[in-house]
């Protein structure tokens, strides 16, 4: 009985008992979720436009952050480093299109999926080879990002919000808004949306498929860079972040592979869910459940909606 109690009752008692901690946990989860959502967003962009399940999306984030920090370490001024990193991400998009997508077009999905595994390894190897494998600190202040925290004495305790987290939430929201505008209002954006539905239709807009791929991968690269900066600021920059990047996968699955709102909602659910889970239920089993809780949440959702929360219903035709 005590077992049942400790799972189903006690955590909620704790939540109500210490609302400040609850708010703090929710906030942490929210910020984490926003960042998950950003990674997932880059993923959805690519999946929609080129049908590639881009496993390397998380690594692109780390790679971007590492490039930025690494360049700065080598003496490049922060904003020049930022510009150069954007350039590198563009070069990456070009290279991916030339080297991977073009030769493998029309291959089964699993093959493209595997190719992005290969890309993951290349990016890890390349990044570490050039910039070294030791963890680095994000150049937060150089990029004029705030640091420190805002503390609120409220709810019978202390709620502490890191400024960088607030910035991250704002920047993430801005990016989503900009992307939404880009998709809705620009010719290229409309073409990108069209290509998701129908390649021919996209061609009729006057943009070649190759160009679309480059643009999409570049966009995803930019999103990755932004995410990388935020996440790097919260911890540090190394390929250990890969594990975090993998969290984008349950986010995606939860949201449905093709849905941008799905990616955002999924990110928030996973982010908040795993923080709550870790904080309130984790101690029951010795902690550290954050490493797998996200996947279980996604799995649980999938069992009821195999296409994810926002995915289109699959009607099998024969």
């Amino acid at each position: 009985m005590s077992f049942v109690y400790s799972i189903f009752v006690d955590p909620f008692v704790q939540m109500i008992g210490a609302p400040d901690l609850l708010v703090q946990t929710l906030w942490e989860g929210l910020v984490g979720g926003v960042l998950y959502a950003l990674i997932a967003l880059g993923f959805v962009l690519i999946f929609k436009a080129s049908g590639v399940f881009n496993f390397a999306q998380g690594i692109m984030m780390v790679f971007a952050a590492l490039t930025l920090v690494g360049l700065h370490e080598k003496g490049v001024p922060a904003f020049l480093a930022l510009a150069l990193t954007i350039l590198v991400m563009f070069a990456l998009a070009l290279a991916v299109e030339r080297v991977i997508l073009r030769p493998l077009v029309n291959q089964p999905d699993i093959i493209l999926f595997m190719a992005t595994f290969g890309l993951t390894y290349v990016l890890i190897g390349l990044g570490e080879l050039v910039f070294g494998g030791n963890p680095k600190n994000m150049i937060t202040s150089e990029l004029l990002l705030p640091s420190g925290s805002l503390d609120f004495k409220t709810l019978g305790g202390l709620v502490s919000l890191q400024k960088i987290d607030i910035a991250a939430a704002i920047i993430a929201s801005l990016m989503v808004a900009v992307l939404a505008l880009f998709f809705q209002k620009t010719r290229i954006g409309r073409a990108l949306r069209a290509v998701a539905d129908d390649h021919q239709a996209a061609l009729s807009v006057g943009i070649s498929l190759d160009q679309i791929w480059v643009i999409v991968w570049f966009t995803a690269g930019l999103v990755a860079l932004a995410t990388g900066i935020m996440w790097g600021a919260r911890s540090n920059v190394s390929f250990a972040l890969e594990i975090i990047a993998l969290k984008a996968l349950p986010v995606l699955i939860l949201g449905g592979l093709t849905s941008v709102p799905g990616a955002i909602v999924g990110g928030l659910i996973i982010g908040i869910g795993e923080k709550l889970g870790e904080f309130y239920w984790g101690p029951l089993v010795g902690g550290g459940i954050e490493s797998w809780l996200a996947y279980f949440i996604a799995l649980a959702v999938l069992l009821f909606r195999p296409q994810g929360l926002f995915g289109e219903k699959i009607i099998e035709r024969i």
Partner: protein
Amino acid sequence: MSVAAVEPATAAGETLLKVENVSLSFGGVRAIRDVSFDIRRGEIRAIIGPNGAGKTSMLNVINGFYHPQAGRITYKGATRRRMRPHQAAAQGVARTFQNVALFKGMTTLDNILTGRTLRMHKSFFWQLWRYGPALNEEIEHRKYCEEIIDFLEIERIRKEPVGRLPYGLQKRVELGRALAMQPDLLLLDEPMAGMNLEEKEDMSRFILDVNAEFGTTIALIEHDIGVVMDLSDRIVVLDYGNKIADGKPDEVRSDQKVIDAYLGVVH
């Protein structure tokens, strides 16, 4: 040929399958509306109709792949609302597909052998050993499959991976796989789609032979009206999910509603 001796055609004319007032819709789109018809043992029954008439959906309902929202299906005397596809298979319903649904990574022979799965019973552990009982069983079924290969005249491609075969032959292999199940009711979804004249003639001959030699009841969908009229004993005509005619080829041919449907008269 010994295959034929296995299932002698029983009292032709007895009802094998009865579809009553079946309706099916997908998220508001009604694919089949209140359709009823029957299939008698030993006959060749055609389901025809313009594109989107609900023909394939009808087959999917019959073999349990779709579950109708309303109506009843009586098969071999047992009435049911819904059935799982593997149950349908176990009860002797076999099926070919509009777009060839072969196992592309396997050879012709393996595809046909797969059709015998339900009749192979040697346990997993015998399979691990393979030699002995499992292989003997495998050989028994290989013999049966070879009869089908002989029947369909596909000896030459026995060991070719099906993915490399021309379309017409793939359709034949698919028919072979369905026959390997020794079905009581064989559902053929556009068996002659995309074939040239000669291939169509071959396929027609095979369908008639299957019906005659094995006594298999056949329900088929086909676009080539000429072929349908020649092959089938009775025809159901669907249009926009409704049944608009049902009868012998001659009756259907002269039915005004059918003529209208095929000429595209607006409803």
